[in-house]
């Protein structure tokens, strides 16, 4: 029974590695922003803590959660990428990452995405887009709560 290319693309080694050994796993203190995200249809849950700097940059980020390899790996990879990034860069990444997993639109800055492009295998599994976006949607909410008036 061969394993299909689509499946191998979905579960690349880097993704499985992040799901088994998530980076930035844990919680931040009460001075950080905490957002809870869940996917009620499958029960996946993510809690993201973000410490924003005065300039709006993501100074620190941690997460906990339970769910499938895709949701946990995607969130882990997200934290690595956005930690220390300016708000504008995080917003650009969010937009590009959504394009990567949905296949809708054009990626603006592939170089900035780096390893995150490995998640483009999700495109072939539309029911898993929500899994890949779970942590990102929580981050999006955190950005909104940190600076709701931003037009960026």
């Amino acid at each position: 029974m061969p394993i299909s290319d689509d499946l191998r693309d979905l579960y690349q080694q880097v993704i499985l590695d992040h799901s088994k050994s998530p980076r930035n796993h844990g919680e931040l203190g009460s001075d950080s922003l905490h957002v809870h995200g869940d996917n009620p249809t499958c029960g996946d849950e993510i809690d993201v803590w973000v410490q924003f700097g005065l300039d709006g940059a993501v100074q620190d980020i941690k997460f906990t959660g339970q769910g499938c390899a895709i949701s946990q790996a995607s969130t882990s990879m997200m934290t690595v990428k956005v930690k220390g990034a300016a708000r504008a860069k995080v917003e650009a990444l969010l937009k590009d990452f959504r394009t990567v997993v949905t296949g809708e639109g054009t990626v603006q800055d592939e170089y900035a995405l780096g390893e995150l492009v490995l998640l483009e295998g999700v495109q072939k599994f539309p029911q898993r887009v929500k899994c890949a976006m779970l942590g990102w949607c929580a981050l999006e909410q955190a950005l909104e709560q940190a600076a709701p008036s931003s037009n960026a």
Partner: protein
Amino acid sequence: MDWTRIRADFPILDQQVQGGPLVYFDNAASSQKPRQVIAALVRYYQQDNANVHRGLHDLSMRATDAFEAGRAKAARFIGAAREEEIIFTRGTTEGINLVAQVWAAQFLKAEDVILLTGMEHHSNLVPWQLAARRCGAVLKHVPVLDDGTLDLAAFDVLLTTQVKVFACVHISNSLGTINPVKELCAKARAVGAMTLVDGAQAAGHVPVDVRDIGCDFYAFSGHKMCAPTGIGVLYGRHGLLETMDPWHGGGEMINSVTLEASTFKPPPARFEAGTPDIAGVIGLAAAIDYLEAIGIAAIQAHGLELTNYAIQRLGEVPGTRILGPQGARASLVAFTLACAHPHDLVEFANSHGLALRGGHHCTQPLMKRFKVPGTSRASFYFYNTQAEVDRMLDILRQAVTFFS
């Protein structure tokens, strides 16, 4: 029993999915339909289709006869005393909602206790939560033991005269537990509680006799027992149905209507407003004929054999945890694998043509009780084979290698 010949009645099973032969192990979610049931639907639509009960022309009379024959067949199938005790619904969920709305609105009051169990499907939990919210009743739950059976000692303690409703699943869709519903209903009746049994996983899978069980209501769905989707049955004890108000208002459920008020038909018409799912009833009747020709006892035995074999084989896979009782159980097995989340495992299985179910199975409190985010579930029906279980095991072994 010639199971190979029986399997050939299910054209859908003979197909490739993702490059592998389809192995359909999601029967607890919905069963497949034999060509005999499909043919009954086609025949109805090609020869007899018309609205029921109101027409004086041939087609309407034929449709009405077939529809009401379906009611009589359903009554006999579950051992009801009379066919007026059969209310056609969209499925188990609608049947339970009917009771939790109509009966509860009339007979439940603040501080009354609604006793459920910790293994209810959301469809036998949420309707009662809504009922409790409306009238101020209190929900209580019989705990589930580690082995997946109900805590019967706790049941005895919880069963006070405050309990006005006892609603319980016959067979757990998440654990495969077969609950002792006859014993439970007898005790509940003794304190004066109304009793409802959710038979979604039981009808068509184990023998069901509502008078032997002694419940007031029994709800089940057609689509889990070879009938089409969209048709189900709510059995209600006739004496109780007669005391109940209508649910939906509309055509078919009235005797006479003025601009100001209406009078209502007796059960079951009182609870069947509007044009019913006529084809669904005809399909359900064909499914009952089909299942009874095989024999429910034979179906149950075949399912248990496959389940026991699957449990034994799953034990060979490292990191497997099996939920649910040892010994007597229904034809499904839910399990977790240490190396893979259920969704990842189900995705992997699907890429080989194996249809499993992964997740919380609409029993979130039960998943919490067993401290799992969800499980993977293989559920069998009589057309499944031991060779398919073997293939599942090959795929699971490969998944373990892939995800480890």
